[in-house]
């Protein structure tokens, strides 16, 4: 792909990145950080390519180390984020109307699946 297309894609991705998290409540800062963390574990794809093209044993060893690290980032990141979000389920009572924005948002978080009629 030529340089101009790559630049275009990069700039558009910057705008999308800014846009998708522009108004996040502080309740979700930690899970969002963790989720973004998991996404950059996709460097695993790069590590696999490098390891798959290695012929020298030292290069292979370093590349496999990169694969291990990237997998830890990717798998661990998604699992830890899921566990954090799991905690938002199972609330006993729905929040009262007086509790403003923060909990109004939370009420939906795991509620859909959990709340019984």
């Amino acid at each position, binding site marked *: 792909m030529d340089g101009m297309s790559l630049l275009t894609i990069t700039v558009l991705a910057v705008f999308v990145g800014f846009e998708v998290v522009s108004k*996040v409540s502080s309740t979700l800062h930690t899970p969002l950080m963790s989720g973004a963390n998991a996404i950059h574990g996709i460097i695993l794809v790069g590590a696999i390519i490098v390891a798959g093209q290695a012929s020298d044993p030292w290069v292979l060893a370093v590349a496999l180390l990169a694969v291990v690290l990237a997998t830890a980032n990717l798998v661990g990141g998604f699992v830890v984020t899921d566990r954090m979000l799991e905690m*938002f389920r199972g609330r006993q009572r729905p929040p009262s109307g007086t509790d403003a924005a923060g909990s109004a948002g939370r009420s939906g978080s795991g509620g859909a699946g959990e709340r019984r009629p």
Partner: protein
Amino acid sequence: MTLLDPTWTALLYLAAAACFILALKGLSSPKTARRGNLIGAFGALLAVVTVFLSVKLDNIPWILGAIVVGSGIAAPVARRVQMTQMPQLVALFNGVGGGAAALVALLELPHTDDPWVRLAIVFTLLVGAVSFAGSAVTFAKLQGLMTTRPVTFPGLPVLMALVLLAAVAVGVVVILGGSMALAVVLLVLGLVAGVLLVLPVGGADVPIVISLLNAFTGLAVAASGLVLGNVLLLVAGTLVGASGTILTRAMAAAMGRSVAGIMFGAFKGGSTAGSTAVSERPVRSSSAEDVAVLLGYAQRVIIVPGYGLAVAQGQHTAAELASALESRGTEVDFAIHPVAGRMPGHMNVLLAEANVPYESLKEMGDINSEFKTADVALVVGANDVVNPAAKTTAGSPIYGMPILEVADARQVVFLKRSMRPGFAGIENDLLYEPQTTLLFGDAKDSLTKVLGAVKAL
């Protein structure tokens, strides 16, 4: 032999990129967060399967073995970690991602003559190494392996400048000549820079640095996408870099800080009023029975949970105390500071784990005006988030951070382990005020005793 032609490969990577965008979008709203995370994980799986089907790879058994090892280490750790230790685990995972990006870039260096690609390699090496080493230091700080206070020494700014200058010089030579040995030197310089960058950051600012380093790793991954000509890495890395930057700024704003102030505040010197020295001033300490009387005959009690409560796993006892008081006709609320715990939103996660009913959790903005009407503010294992120094003492490390205005309550009871200062390493003058009572001990033990005494009233 590859199974997928380039068009299918590009389409599958595009689908994975779309999954990542949906994941970030989902994670920014509580309603869709968990689903968003699963969509992201699916996108990652799709991308990994695609790379196996679309690139001619040797060493496949080795690669699969490494993936099994990586998952085998990370998944159980992520499953078992206590919620209180979540922030340092996030730092750790971020660091290994940065390290992986740096290694991938290093190994690609001999495969290219293009100076632009080498520029991207140099960038990935440096930023990945900074992220790796910086995350290791934040991990050590949060895990209690080293002090959480800012660590500075007189020559630090000069040393930092020298390391960065050396890195730029070596980087230019690598771009021009492609020397592998110098690239390794660059990697080491990046590691040193990462340590120097994070050492001076202390206390409650550490989580914000994790977010910043997270964005750095994203940028490193994006640059490695340029190196490998892989659009998915480019898009995913850029997304994380951009959203991480926004998130870092939002987190800093929630604490009333600027990102530049956090990173370089300690460089200026004299700005760290923090001291671990414990003052000799007298405090009023009390017994669980006295606290129980205070609480049991109050009309309105506001409980302020902090990290100490979480560490002691005292959430359930706190909830029980609240319902015991409510059954006596006392109105009880929990006041949640946005950065209570160790990270923004951390306390909400912890209390949700303990099934504390959400209707009694009040956000800082809603509850602050209500402290005036409270008979007792019960501070359990929190310190920095109620420290009036944030409003009154310019130059304090937490100056400017919005706080819970506990001082407005008629009586303040602190459940504390000791007089040792909190995470930010600064004293809380509120402890010495006449309306303040202290009950020393482990948060859970103290709560259990108070609960017993309330029931006996």
